């Protein structure tokens, strides 16, 4: 078990800067997930930690050691790849023991360690098979096993489950979580699947263009996104974002939608009394109000509430336990998630009111949360 510290990391491929000035601390025994869209530099960062890429500037510490210049094998890491990367001509046992054989362990120790790991991952029956004769899930287990035998402090996973089908992915996800609880190793896990990130992580680092946007617990990421990118990227279906303006009336902050300007003069906008501001708002500030689909309450009739809008239902998508209905609010696309018992008639108009304690407001220009 070791912590991982990345200090001021810079990496570029020729002229393209991929990582710039990146800082990241991963505590001992923590499960950290790197989440971000394709091409944002997640694998690159992982490869830097593993020592498979030569960095341009900065330092990497694993445990107490500065491993910036160390060879991959000397860093105390094990790595699991998206394509499994099993040695095709070796059977499972040889695959597992390759690293140990390179390191020159005695036959007896190797046999014992392989047996131990095979037991943990329940692949004892497969030891004599070649990778080609394994299913995707079994291959992935062997790949994890290959990292496990080496008795390292830190595990690096590069999208290890993304080649598997949905059901298997869920199963292995839970297995991984159990494994982490059992071993207590530090794990850094790359994915672009937000469900994986939210379910597995102690903390998630959301990345975009090589910059960590937010480093927080899954709860924090989901409920208090630091900026518009994180809000939009995490959550499925994604957060509703409505453009509007802030203003003040009788010491009360109000939000008015842009497309409301032409509506009747009586309408003042929705009250932000219950919204927990994290930065000082300004009168006339252009903002986006973000509300997750499940934090919208639908009612049949106008409830006279100050924070409700007319919601025009247009399509209903049953998801099993709940239902997502797609429609529009004042001409803007809008989606709401409600329990499956809710019965809809198509093309009806409902009242949508927001739970503002769970909303997010972002400045339009900077995209930052206020």
């Amino acid at each position: 078990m070791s912590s991982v510290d990345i200090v001021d990391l810079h990496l570029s491929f020729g002229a393209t800067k991929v990582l710039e000035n990146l800082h990241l601390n991963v505590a001992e025994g923590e499960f950290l997930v790197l989440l971000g869209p394709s091409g944002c530099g997640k694998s690159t960062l992982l490869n830097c930690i593993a020592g498979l890429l030569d960095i341009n500037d900065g330092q990497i510490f694993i445990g107490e050691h500065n491993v910036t210049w160390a060879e991959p094998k000397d860093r105390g890491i094990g790595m699991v790849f998206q394509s499994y990367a099993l040695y095709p001509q070796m059977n499972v046992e040889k695959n597992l023991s390759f690293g140990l054989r390179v390191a020159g362990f005695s036959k007896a120790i190797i046999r014992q360690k392989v047996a131990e790991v095979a037991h943990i991952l329940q692949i004892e029956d497969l030891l004599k098979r070649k990778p080609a004769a394994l299913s995707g899930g079994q291959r992935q287990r062997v790949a994890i096993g290959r990292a496990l035998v080496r008795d390292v402090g830190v595990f690096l996973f590069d999208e290890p489950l993304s080649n598997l089908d949905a059901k298997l992915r869920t199963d292995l996800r839970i297995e991984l979580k159990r494994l982490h609880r059992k071993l207590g190793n530090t794990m850094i896990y790359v994915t672009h699947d937000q469900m994986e990130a939210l379910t597995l992580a102690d903390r998630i680092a959301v990345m975009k263009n090589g910059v960590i946007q937010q480093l927080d617990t899954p709860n924090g990421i989901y409920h208090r996104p630091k900026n518009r990118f994180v809000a939009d990227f995490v959550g499925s279906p994604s957060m509703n974002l409505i453009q509007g303006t802030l203003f003040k009336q009788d010491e009360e902050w109000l939000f008015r939608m842009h497309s409301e300007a032409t509506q009747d003069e009586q309408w003042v906008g929705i009250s932000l009394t219950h919204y927990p501001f994290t930065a000082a708002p300004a009168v006339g500030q252009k903002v986006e109000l973000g509300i997750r689909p499940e934090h919208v309450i639908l009612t049949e009739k106008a409830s006279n509430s100050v924070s409700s809008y007319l919601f025009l239902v247009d399509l209903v998508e049953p998801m099993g336990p709940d239902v997502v209905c797609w429609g529009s609010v004042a001409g803007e696309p809008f989606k709401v998630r409600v329990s499956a018992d809710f019965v809809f008639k198509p093309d009806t108009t409902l009242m949508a009111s927001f739970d503002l304690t769970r909303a997010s407001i972002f400045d339009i220009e900077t995209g930052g949360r206020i």
Partner: protein
Amino acid sequence: MRGVTPTTAIGPRGSKPKRILSTRNIVVYGVLTVAAVYWVIPLYVMIVTSLKGLPEIRMGNIFAPPLQITFEPWVKAWDSACTGLSCEGLKVGFWNSVKILIPSTFISIAIASVNGYALSFWKFKGSEVFFTLLLLGAFIPYQVIIYPLVILLRELGLFASLGGIVLIHTVFGMPILTLLFRNYFASVPMELFKAARVDGAGFWRIFLQILLPMSLPIFVVALILQITGIWNDFFFGVIYAGTLNFPMTVQLNNIVNTTQGVKEYNVNMAATLLTGLLPLVVYFISGKLFVRGIAAGAVKG
């Protein structure tokens, strides 16, 4: 319900019948037959001629099968046909060719495979430039560098020696073989290489223990290319090998083009067939592997 109503029972069912005498089949098989006949007839003529005695050949019917089969010409071609002044047959050339072939093939493939491996996995500064230069080497016409190479070998003290001709074959095989190996290794997933690095394997261990075992098809391709190329070579042999090391092809030429006495067509045919035997055998044995290796980019694992 289905099968009860007559309309569904009558309609087409099962695999669609294929017409055997379609225009397409006629054209395809026609062309293939003509091509096959075109290549096989000369071979047939050579074989029957090599099995006839000289009097029978003088009767002039080259397509007729031998009236009396004799292996005399084959024995003579191998053992006692005259090349210039010495009359020891092709066997000297055969062993010379073997002596040239084995080290040239082995050395060139060994170097080229390591080259290709380094160029696709251990990219160094300028490795792309290096590769481009090497490829350029494949396009330089031989004629331009024949004489400079003669001088170079002379300076190295290798001209007209076994070492010299082996060096020449190794160097000339390098561009195409390196390209072959590099492209093959480029299709091996980078993650496999990274996994091996994390497991602590170095340059040679990754090559020998991980890549070699999974690269058999491409080695077979390289082997076939080199064996047939070097065995069939006449040009380099006659220039660089020196009289003592003349390969089989050169001696064949000397036998066939001997100006003294009568033309022994049967011996010439037998000698030619003997010389071409090795490449022929190699193709027959490894044809399947060869095709598999050429297509190997697509199949992995």
